[in-house]
């Protein structure tokens, strides 16, 4: 488990101390999880929806939503009604 690589994939900045602590904790967890390999699942369909629901639709009608002020309310930074984000120029 390459914690540095995974942190990068997950857009998480970890401190050196966290990297060390997590390495041990997560190794223990993943070792425990490896018990799943003992089960034969060769003929089993994976499941992610437990109540059998498929393709829920609702009428394509316009209903009131948030106004601009509401939508921007919790942003740390806003400019002229826009959310402000970081840009990385390469």
């Amino acid at each position: 488990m390459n914690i540095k690589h995974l942190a990068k994939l997950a857009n998480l900045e970890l401190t050196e101390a966290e990297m060390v602590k997590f390495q041990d904790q997560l190794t223990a967890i993943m070792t425990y999880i490896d018990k799943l390999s003992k089960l034969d699942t060769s003929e089993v369909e994976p499941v992610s929806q437990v109540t059998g629901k498929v393709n829920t639709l609702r009428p394509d009608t316009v209903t009131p939503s948030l106004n601009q002020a509401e939508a921007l309310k919790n942003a740390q930074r806003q400019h002229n009604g826009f959310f402000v984000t970081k840009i990385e120029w390469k």
Partner: protein
Amino acid sequence: MEINTITISEARQGLISGKFRAADLVQACLEQIKKHDRRIFSFITVSDSEAREAAQEADKLISSADNRKRLFEEKPLLGIPIAVKDVLSTRDLRTTASSKILENYTPVFDATVVARMRSAGAVVVGKTNSDTFAFGASTENSGYGVTHNPWDLDRVAGGSSGGSAAAVAADEAIFSLGTDTGGSIRLPASFCGVVGLKLTYGRASRYGLLSMASSFDTPGPLTKTVADAREIYTLLAGEDLKDATSSSVKKTYTKKKSINQLKIGLPTEYFDVGLDSGVRKTVLKAVDFFKDHGATIKTISLPKTEYGVATYYVLVPSEISSNLGRYDGTRFGKTRDFFEGEAKRRIIIGTFSLSSGYYDAYYKKASQVRALIMDEFETAFRDVDLIMGPVCPTPPFRIGERVNDPLAMYLSDVYTVTVNLAGLPSISVPAGFSDGLPVGLQIIGPQWSEELILDTAEAYEAATDWHKKKPNL
């Protein structure tokens, strides 16, 4: 008797008869919070002025009603104080998910489950503490502090809905809302001696719940009695078009079963060597009630139980890693370095399980084992009506005992996670005490069988007085 110690039904009776007003009820709860919450810490945010205002509005409606009974039929929770777990959005009331990353976040809308409580007239007295983003079994992973068990302040209240359970146990609110993804309503309910009902997945809308694991999360009630839990279940259940996974299933159990018609399964795996002897004794004594009243008690085997925690801790962190991708500090919240440690851990586990080269061995594999676990329950329920057992292998543990060993903490969930993997309903109902600490009886049913579970739990509750006991605060 202090009126904050009563149930929803009793509160409604008192309001209809004019014995007290909504303002008195809310005042009693706010006073209890002021008196005890510094030591318990059920609440991250107390909404004092909004609650008083809402109580005043409720009292106006009540005093001006031609027919109070009819008013309370339309608004059955009018004026009744509710505490809401801080992972559920409350309009204009700070919602933190018990994480520092959302310390200053105020939703502009209510979660559907909150909206349903409000339109029934309930008064929100505050937002309760939980493990950060509901990640935990003890409420020790909160970014704001630990919730202490009202029965023993040196011990955990359980998690992740610890604040919601403690608030009800300590009579700081008449009832509360929590969420159950891997046991997070049932476990704190068991630890705090209150009723905790996990609904069938999809029964209650997840709209406005700060998502943890989208195929597992289930909002639900924590209450003082089974009758109160039934009432909230009825108000919460029902399809919501804003949640594509919410269910339109209205049916409940077709056959009403009295105790002597019930076949109850006790899985050997739920009573093995890992189970604390005091918990075992208490739970088996509760099961004896059903035996004494004519139910058939069958020993059954659920061999996949030992794979539940492993399966859960692949699938849930995977869904977490995806759901928490939205917290990038742009539209809301602070930057990702403000996540608590448990959030970072789960994001990394999930990212790993979904990553290229590992997806098949972890995420796909766990999804297949999930199917096996669902099948195992389905087979068991052809043979028995309900499954009973403990909620947790141990009584409430000491604060600090497990928090530095995540794997040990995860193993607290061994009797609860398979229920979430299969989307089943389950209740924790107070079953007594072991060395002075509450112990809950878990009753699990097939999907959509909440009515049967509630009827069964209510019969047990009627024959006992655990629900009348209060902690010595």
